[in-house]
């Protein structure tokens, strides 16, 4: 920020310079990486943090009396505190380390449903990723739980007016994503939480695609649970965090059993450790958690107002550029979006689009984006091609991408 409170222009080149993987050629062409909704590249500081951990501090955590174990434990717990601060949780005791959003939701599906009865209901949305559908279907099969869904309209927005009509006295949870991975829609999570709260229903937010595009304040959102994955937010794979508000972790039974989550074990009984340890059985992904903490610390230091403007410009350039290509259909044009654009070309298979773009050095995702029910809703049964930008992408890259899509269209149609 400058003295008069205005943000500096976003210096994308100095950001890019911190991401070694962005600086390479594929198939002899400069890489244009537009598959950030699948995973993000990692800044040097995250790579260095993980390497240095292995070079200096590697030990198992929480149970050693020796120096390396103490160091590793401290760094692990510091990472937890960093995640709590980044999400504006009240306490680091509200943060459980998991493998990622998928595990976080499986944990909740297991532990929340402990006292659910047949006929109880869970409300999801039609925009959900399989990670926030399948665990509930599995609970449904085991316990006879009914799934209801908030519908999505043609533009890719949730029809929030339908929500009150879906709530009954059997509704046990509302679980929605913060941002749609397939369409980029930013969902009105705070409003959903407000409605839910009025009915005393807890809300789970799948934040996999939310955190990469701006600071998240779980208290302002008003959700009870927020799940995020490190690898979507410039950190390493295989680690994530589940935020659970207040005393939820005290009230829920554990998910996985094993070492580190116990206070006392006898053959005639077990006493669990207090949360969050109660939910962290076994040796965790220690270097992953520390790398995740490093990624968030790095991200927290960025100028997010400038990033917001830059990402809006990327989205506008993508949307306007693609809209000019004959026969191209944009799938999802919600009013509030992150720079993710899903599209189809009449007469062209999404996989062909993706393969040809790859041959031009451009990485996009094609297929159903782990959202098969949504692909049916938007009449794209073979899926779509999806370009998903991060703040390290440039307008020049977007222009290259749009020109490449136009060329691909000429080749395929």
């Amino acid at each position, binding site marked *: 920020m400058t003295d008069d409170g205005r943000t500096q222009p976003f210096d994308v080149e100095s950001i890019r310079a911190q991401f070694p993987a962005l600086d390479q050629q594929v*198939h002899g062409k400069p890489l244009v990486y537009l598959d950030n909704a699948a995973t993000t590249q990692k800044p040097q500081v995250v790579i260095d943090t993980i390497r240095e951990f292995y070079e200096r501090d590697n030990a198992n955590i929480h149970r050693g009396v020796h120096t390396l174990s103490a160091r590793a434990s401290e760094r692990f717990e510091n990472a937890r505190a960093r995640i709590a601060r980044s999400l504006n949780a009240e306490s680091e005791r509200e943060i459980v380390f998991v493998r990622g959003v998928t595990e976080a939701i499986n944990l909740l599906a297991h532990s929340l449903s402990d006292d659910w009865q047949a006929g109880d209901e869970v409300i999801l949305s039609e925009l959900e990723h399989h990670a926030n559908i399948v665990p509930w279907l599995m609970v449904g099969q085991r316990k006879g739980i009914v799934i209801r869904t908030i519908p999505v309209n043609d533009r890719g927005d949730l029809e929030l007016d339908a929500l009150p009509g879906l709530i009954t006295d059997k509704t046990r949870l509302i679980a929605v994503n913060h941002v749609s991975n397939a369409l980029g829609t930013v969902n009105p999570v705070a409003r959903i939480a407000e409605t839910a709260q009025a009915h005393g229903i807890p809300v789970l937010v799948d934040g996999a695609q939310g955190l990469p595009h701006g600071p998240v304040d779980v208290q302002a959102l008003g959700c009870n649970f927020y799940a995020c994955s490190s690898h979507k937010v410039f950190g390493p794979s295989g680690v994530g965090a589940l935020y659970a508000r207040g005393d939820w972790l005290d009230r829920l039974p554990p998910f996985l059993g094993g070492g580190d989550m116990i206070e006392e074990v006898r053959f005639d009984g077990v006493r669990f450790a207090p949360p969050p340890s109660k939910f962290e059985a076994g040796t965790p992904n220690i270097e992953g958690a520390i790398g995740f903490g490093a990624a968030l610390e790095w991200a927290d230091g960025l100028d997010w107002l400038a990033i917001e403007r830059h990402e809006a410009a990327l989205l506008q350039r993508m949307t306007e550029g693609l809209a000019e290509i004959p026969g191209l259909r944009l799938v999802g044009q919600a009013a509030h979006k992150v720079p993710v654009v899903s599209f189809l070309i009449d007469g062209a298979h999404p*996989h*062909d689009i993706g393969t040809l773009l790859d*041959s031009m050095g451009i990485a996009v995702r094609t297929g159903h984006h782990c959202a098969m029910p949504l692909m049916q809703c938007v009449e794209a049964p*073979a899926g779509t091609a999806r370009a998903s930008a991060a703040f390290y992408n440039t307008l020049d890259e977007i222009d290259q991408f749009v020109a490449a899509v136009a060329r691909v269209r000429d*080749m395929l149609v």
Partner: protein
Amino acid sequence: MADQAPSIDAEIQALKDEFAFLGDWTERYQYIMDMGKQMPAFPCEKQDEAHKFHGCQSQVWFDYEWDGDRLDLRGTSDAMIVNGLIALLFRVYSGRTADEILATDGAFIDELGLSAHLSANRATGLSNMIEKIRQLAAERAAA
């Protein structure tokens, strides 16, 4: 000999020469798709579950017939690059005897650079189809 078709080895060499001539992978894919477009049409009524070739990301249909001692292959896909890859495989294997097919494994896919450039799913789909063709030949040779 029913005709003067080039040998399998000559056909593979021709493919390698053609690939080498093309400047980059975008052009190679264009060429692969063009091969697909020149394949005889696969009858719509056979695009059913019975003729579906599983193990590919896109939809693939496959059929064959022994014409004397030669294996005639037919197929198609809803994705143009996959359709072209099927045409490429058939250029090598269709109209060949069981012995010829069994003498030629899928190494040429590597040699053409396809394994390195195709996505893992597509490369697997391609090798599954080669396996299927060679299995048909092995059954014929054993009969």
